[in-house]
């Protein structure tokens, strides 16, 4: 009974969202507002039960981990942004959050993206296999000309201009591939919804 009701609600809300494809209308607005409201409510409840209670409140009040009072106070200070007079207090926890994340991500990007990706692009131009060698040459040309395109300290004229032009072609091909994948991704979402409507709601698919 409840499952059937759920399917009907999900299907009707899906149709409300799809109705925007015809034109903006109150059904779409209703579904949009409902989605935003429920998402916010669901998110807050989830964070309260999955994060606040097990990570902070219970250890602090039941297990006597008094050191947790420090993140608790820092957490409360974030809400000082709502009061203009005391909003400066929120800068302390913000500084801490930004500092920690910057520290963690810089190390990751440095070792994982910068060093290893440069290393992966230093390829032999002749490997003894024609196809592999051809691939490596194309990749090397693409990397070098792409970098030339993004170097702005010298005017793109002559050899540098030609390199930048080739780099543009490589970039365009890369953007085209990304666009293709984006189309595929969006189509997959649409397939998922249409499949749901046809299978679970209308029952015309197995």
């Amino acid at each position, binding site marked *: 009974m409840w499952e059937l009701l759920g399917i009907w609600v999900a299907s009707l809300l899906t149709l409300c969202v799809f109705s925007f*494809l*015809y034109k903006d209308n109150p059904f779409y607005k209703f579904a949009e507002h409902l989605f935003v409201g429920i998402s916010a409510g*669901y*998110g807050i409840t*989830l*964070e309260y039960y*999955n*994060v606040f209670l*097990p*990570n902070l409140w219970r250890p602090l009040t039941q297990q006597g981990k008094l050191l947790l009072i420090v993140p608790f106070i820092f957490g409360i200070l974030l809400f000082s942004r709502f009061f203009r007079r005391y909003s400066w207090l929120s800068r302390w926890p913000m500084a801490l959050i930004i500092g*920690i*994340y910057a520290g*963690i*991500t810089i*190390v*990751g*990007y440095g*070792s*994982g*993206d910068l060093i*290893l*990706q440069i*290393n*992966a692009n230093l390829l032999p131009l002749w490997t003894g296999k024609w196809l592999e060698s051809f691939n490596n040459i194309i990749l090397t040309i693409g990397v070098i000309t792409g970098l030339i395109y993004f170097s702005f300290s010298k005017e793109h004229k002559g050899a540098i201009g030609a390199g930048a032009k080739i780099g543009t072609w490589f970039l365009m091909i*890369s953007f085209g*591939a*990304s666009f293709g*994948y*984006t*189309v*595929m*991704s969006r*189509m*997959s*979402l*649409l*397939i*998922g*919804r*249409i*499949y749901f409507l*046809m299978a679970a709601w209308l029952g*015309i*698919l197995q």
Partner: protein
Amino acid sequence: MKKLLEKLDSLDRRVIFVFIALSIAIPLLFPVNLKFSVTQPVQSFYDAIENLPPGSKVLVSCDYDPGSMPELYPMNIAVFHHLFSRNHKIITMQLWATGTLLVERAMTEVLSEFPDKKYGEDYVNLGFKEGREVVMVSMGTSIPRTFPTDYRGNKVETLPIMQGVNTFDDLALLMNISGGLPGTKEWVLQVQSRFHVKLGSGCTAVSAPEFYPYVQSGQLVGLLGGMKGAAEYEKLVKRPGSAARGMDAQSVSHIIVFLFIVIGNIAFFALKKTKKRLKV
């Protein structure tokens, strides 16, 4: 001819929407099972699991939400199925709050085919943990300290499956089903590059082009990109699911998009030429 071109040039976008909807609904109703081949990143992903000795412990981080379900849920099911069919042990976790219920659902669906698998011995769900990259780095120091209790509230250190599991070094493989941030990029940068674990990824098609360089550099052992990647993987594990079913619709809708792009361009350039001629 000019009238037809003008009509095409100013075609109502709703006509395109109707064609796209039909190009998806008709192949779903009347499937023709178009053939597709398995690409190398998917084959490598499959091989990474196949080459593990039976009983290996694999961490599957399912970081997605219902928004990317059509692409990632089939992968999730296929990965669980593949791991159980090879008698591996699954330790799953989530960095997205809304992913927990999807993982529970996927596990229930797969367990119907493996009724002898026991919670705590063959699989465990550590649940959701807030903190993104901080959680990943913290797991590198101690997994039981990062996740003191599992999703069901059991103490992690008391579970048989977690015996001997302290850091990433104690896991044979790490698989990430990624819907965005935090996801595969963060696992590569924070975990693979620091702790040198073997990492495989299943991601949405939108983010796949960003992750292919990680396959080429060896930072990822394999990659499932979008619904196509999921369908290829379903083919390898011989368990056709919703991804394989959607491939006909995917192919036909792409042909329609391609045709509209071609027709639109023909109309645009032909009209441009006509206007130029009239000016002269």
